[in-house]
């Protein structure tokens, strides 16, 4: 009796096994926690329901650096995932790892899936392509840095709430009035290096590094100690001294300081909107980041942040076919629009931007299209296409450490930026030597 039941079970298993095996699994490691992760899973199951051949399996691997570390370890052990979400600062490291990755353009053309890099916003394509214009990774979640204003605080200070400061001169003037009205924290920022060095440079059309911000070769050097950079960090340090600028930390700690109403002005990711919408008990607006109006060519365009999907090497051709199918699915305008409107990340194809606009979403949510407008304000130049520095995880830490020294008044801004360049260049040389 017992044996018979067992035999029946085996027979049943044998019957169903081929059906289960015919589905090719695509492993996708990502770093989208919370609501973002739920939305990502929705995309994957939508794809899985749309066809029978492939199954995308998503795995949350912790923060961006954590999932990258996990994938590197997995690659060394020979079981990397097919798709890996990597944040923008890891781009150069991934790109240099020839053999560990397969360029997205190649994956698509091998699988004969339609793929047109020109369909994407130029600032997005530029960030993830080589100099010949081949897209190396698939842009997934992109944002940019925006300037937020607490309109209620402006009103209280006797300022026009509809007139957010456009230049840094206006920021300073408004900050003094806000302070005088009793505002505890006047201005704060998230992601200090991304905002005040990387985007600041692109926005003013000045280089972050030589060789087209590192895109032209590994022998690049940082140029972030230019007079304009020193001028800006000096302004911020002075504001910090006068209590007009409150430093919040290296990541997104500034977001909560703004959405809680503690700080009246704030620069942070476009992705911060969702959280502000939920938490803020005041009227606010989203604006372009400020600039210096005496700098020629400013404002230019801002650059992206966020992450892209890299296809890892050493997999079977059938699996790559599935990866290509999935990436084509993700590029569809309606899928893009869903991701954009739910998460607040920018729509990265022109078609999805148009679709969202036609749907009337921007009329209902004023300001939601500001990030795209800021990213595409002008055609990107060599200085505003993006950046590509090896080991930029370390490089950014160095910049942030030096900025902190300047903001705390421990170092003169000029000295801090000189040190950032010196220490940053050491890291670049090390990376160059390791990736010859």
């Amino acid at each position, binding site marked *: 009796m017992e044996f018979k039941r067992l035999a029946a079970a085996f027979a049943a298993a044998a019957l169903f096994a081929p059906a289960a095996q015919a589905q090719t699994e695509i492993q996708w490691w990502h770093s989208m926690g919370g609501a973002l992760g739920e939305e990502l899973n929705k995309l994957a199951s939508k794809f899985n329901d749309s066809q029978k051949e492939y199954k995308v399996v998503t795995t949350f691997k912790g923060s961006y650096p954590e999932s990258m*570390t996990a994938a*590197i370890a997995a690659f060394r052990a020979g079981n990397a995932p097919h798709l890996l979400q990597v944040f923008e600062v890891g781009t150069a490291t991934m790109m240099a*790892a*020839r053999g560990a990755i397969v360029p997205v353009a190649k994956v698509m053309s091998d699988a004969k899936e339609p793929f047109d890099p020109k369909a994407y916003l130029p600032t997005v394509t530029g960030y993830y392509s080589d100099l010949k214009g081949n897209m190396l990774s698939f842009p997934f979640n992109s944002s940019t840095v925006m300037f937020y204003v607490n309109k209620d605080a402006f009103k209280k200070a006797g300022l026009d709430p509809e007139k957010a400061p456009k230049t840094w001169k206006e920021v300073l003037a408004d900050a003094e009035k806000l302070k005088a009205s009793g505002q505890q924290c006047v201005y704060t920022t998230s992601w200090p290096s991304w905002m005040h060095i990387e985007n600041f440079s692109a926005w003013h059309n000045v280089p972050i590094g030589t060789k087209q911000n590192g895109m032209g070769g590994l022998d690049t050097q940082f140029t972030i100690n230019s007079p304009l950079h020193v001028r800006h960090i000096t302004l911020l340090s002075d504001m910090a001294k006068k209590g007009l600028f409150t430093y919040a930390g290296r990541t997104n*700690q500034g977001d909560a300081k703004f959405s809680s109403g503690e700080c009246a002005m704030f620069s942070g990711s476009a992705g911060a909107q969702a959280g502000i919408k939920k938490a803020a008990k005041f009227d606010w607006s989203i604006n372009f980041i400020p600039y210096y109006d005496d700098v020629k060519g400013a404002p230019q365009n801002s650059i992206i942040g966020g992450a892209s999907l890299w296809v890892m090497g050493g997999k079977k051709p059938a699996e790559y076919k599935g990866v290509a199918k999935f990436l084509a699915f993700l590029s569809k305008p309606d899928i893009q629009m869903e991701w954009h409107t739910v998460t607040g990340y920018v729509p990265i194809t022109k078609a999805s931007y148009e679709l969202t606009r036609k749907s009337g979403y921007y009329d209902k949510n004023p300001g939601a299209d500001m990030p795209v407008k800021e990213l595409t304000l002008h055609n990107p130049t060599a200085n505003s296409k993006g950046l590509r520095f090896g080991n930029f995880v*370390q490089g950014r830490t160095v910049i942030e450490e030096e900025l902190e020294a300047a903001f705390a008044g421990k170092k003169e801004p000029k000295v801090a930026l000189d040190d950032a360049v010196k220490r940053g260049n050491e890291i670049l040389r090390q990376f160059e030597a*390791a990736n010859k």
Partner: protein
Amino acid sequence: MEKRVVFRSAWLPYLLVAPQIAITIVFFFWPAAQAVWYSFQLQDAFGLRSQFVGLQNFEQLFRDGNYLASFQVTAVFSVLVAFFGIAISLLLAAMADRVIRGALAYKTLLIWPYAVAPAVAGVLWAFLFAPSIGLITYVLRGLGVDWNWIINDNQAVALVVIAAVWKQISYNFLFFLAGLQSIPRSLIEAAAIDGASPTRRFWTIVFPLLSPTTFFLLVVNCVYAFFDTFGVIDATTQGGPAQATQILVYKVYHDGVKAADLGGSSAQSVILMFIVIVLTAVQFRFIERKVQY
């Protein structure tokens, strides 16, 4: 009093210690040897290309003024953690030793923090002291203290020391309590009859008799401060502001795990290993002489 066990067989003692030795080789000697090997190499993140570069990783470290500054941070941090960790737990143990009613409850509560993971401890303290929402920050603001360890380096050091000490107090407390309970009552009673005050009894009788425990804890706490505190730092300051809380082991973790620079990180861990070996040897050579067993 010493009880000697004599093994008749020649191989049995080796067999008995073999599992321990195997574990030590697999989990200590092998990784340590690998760290030494990697420290002479320059590798890309994925290990696709690696080249032998001799001492170049070490040269680079010692040319870097910030790396040298991190030695100083580590020294200050370790002294503070070891001192406060030992002093506070000795005080608590001396108090708990005298409690008669509800002693078990006190002891349990004091031992509790040891079960908390370092990262959790870090997050806990980071929340309490968070610059905008922290409970303790709120109280400090009321007292007129401008509390923002995100940019104030002394406050940042204070925060990580508090978190690291809090985590270690339970461990120290356990050992001190055991040490106190093994001190013969007759000695203390005799001194009391002779009219010695509680303070005097403590410093002339109890403290010297506790010295083996204190010495052991000094070594353990130094090793703890050097190696086990990166979880606390990663969850709170991440080495900042600037590099105020960048202790050596945190830099090893940051460069190796987060930034995927295996060569540089291995070189740092080799240096760290060397420092701890020297430090432990020094402690045994010089401080142990003052210990009365």
